[in-house]
């Protein structure tokens, strides 16, 4: 599903975010990318979502070399990828329903499909009763659930989560982790960049640890241990 071949990302000023990274993430897999701040976790997610282009190497997503995509083709790649952010990125002037439906509206989904899809996404995250609430009326955990509902509403092949529990208390973090697991069980490939020990140890999924832009550990049922020593 996702392949990184000898990927290097260098920013202006010679800062190396990723250094010759190679890895493969299979369809339906759940992967945690862990590591200290600045180790390159978010860079990998941005490469998959084609927010960044590698300086060297190839990023293949669903059989497509994303660097070779023309700007006009990028939106179509992104329709197969859902994204969850640490800071939720919800539209404050739209209700829960409108925020989730927004993801479908912008890709021109028909109105008949829209209603069912939003309902089922909100049911999955357990927020159907709060469909008409505004983000400011929700807790941090609930806002993150709305963000997740928006990410999965169009049934993406891949779900990328960048520090999804960064702003949440431990209980809410475990709730979000369970939700991510539930989405993964429906067949979606889930890639989570995090330095939240609780959710990594709780789910015991594949862990890729980065340090200084290189992979230092790749375990099929790993825990957070390596990253803790760095911090």
């Amino acid at each position: 599903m996702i392949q990184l071949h000898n990927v290097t990302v260098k920013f202006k000023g010679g800062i190396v975010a990723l250094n010759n990274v190679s890895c493969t993430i299979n369809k339906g897999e759940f992967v945690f990318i862990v590591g200290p701040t600045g180790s390159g976790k978010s860079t990998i997610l941005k490469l998959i979502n084609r927010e960044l282009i590698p300086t060297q190497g190839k990023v293949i997503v669903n059989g497509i070399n994303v660097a070779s995509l023309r700007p006009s083709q990028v939106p179509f790649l992104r329709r197969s990828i859902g994204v969850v952010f640490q800071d939720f990125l919800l539209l404050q002037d739209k209700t829960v329903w409108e925020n989730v439906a927004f993801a479908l509206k912008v890709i021109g989904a028909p109105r008949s499909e829209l209603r069912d899809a939003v309902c089922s996404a909100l049911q999955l995250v357990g927020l159907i009763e709060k469909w008409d609430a505004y983000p400011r009326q929700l807790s941090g955990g609930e806002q993150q659930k709305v963000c997740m509902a928006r990410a999965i509403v169009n049934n993406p092949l891949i779900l990328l989560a960048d520090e999804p529990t960064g702003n949440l208390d431990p209980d809410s973090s475990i709730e979000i982790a369970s939700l991510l697991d539930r989405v993964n069980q429906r067949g979606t490939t889930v890639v989570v960049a995090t330095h939240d020990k609780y959710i990594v140890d709780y789910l015991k999924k594949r862990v890729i640890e980065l340090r200084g832009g290189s992979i230092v550990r790749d375990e099929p049922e790993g825990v957070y241990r390596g990253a803790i020593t760095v911090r």
Partner: protein
Amino acid sequence: MLLRFVEHCISEALTSMRRHWLMSMAATVSAALSVAVFGLLVLIVLYVRSAVLRESEKVNCMRVYLHSGVTEQQARELQRRIQRWVLVKSVKFVHKDEGLREMEASMGNHVSLRSLAGGNPLPHRLDVVAVNFEDAIECAKRLERLPEVESVVCMADVVKQLSHIMRLVRLCGLALVIVTAFATLTLIANAIRLTIYARREAIRIMQLVGATIWFIRAPLMLEGLIYGLVGGAVASLMVYAAHASLLRLVETNKVLLMLFHVAVPNWYFFASMTIVGLAFGLLGSLSAVHQLVRYLS
């Protein structure tokens, strides 16, 4: 699909305008004021040009004195030849007796020039009117080269000055119109930029969930078009009202009536101001959205 896209553009543009009503109003007022200034400027240029052209008609006329040996028949033949020139609007033959009568009349008919000179001393004359006062000098030069012509009396200095003024009016008008157009475009582009800034989160989300560039930019462009259209319409009403009050003032004042004896611009001048507003809105939003697209890519 297309219908949904159009529906999305209209609803997004109107929602954004309603939510950011203060900014939308500022953009529309800016557009209206700049299009009004633009329209007033064009109107002033038209008035000045029309006044200069009106004055210029008085100096288009040249008096062409023929040699004393030229007969009436030769003079009339010459008249027909000159009439065919493209630079010439009309040629009138003035018999030397008629010329003398005019001269005596201009002196108050107190003096008989014929008796003083012992006959009519004047030659036949042609009164030539050039098509355009700017061509009058060229026309006079060509007339002077004709063998039958003794001399040409033309208000050369006045023509030169008028020509110079006209060029100046045209250049200044063009420069002012360009500057105002640029200012209008910048104002509208800035209004759209502010809208983009206010909606940056929505745009970022749209971008991440796979909205195409056109899906993001079309409502913004429509918003710019609406600012331009409404601004242009308001501006044309403002200029129309200002013009109407000026005309009322001129009609009641005899001195002003002499100065402003020019044709009133017809309705399509005011309609075209709305179209100019629309064009400014489109160009302004294009420029702002172009930057957004560069940023998104």
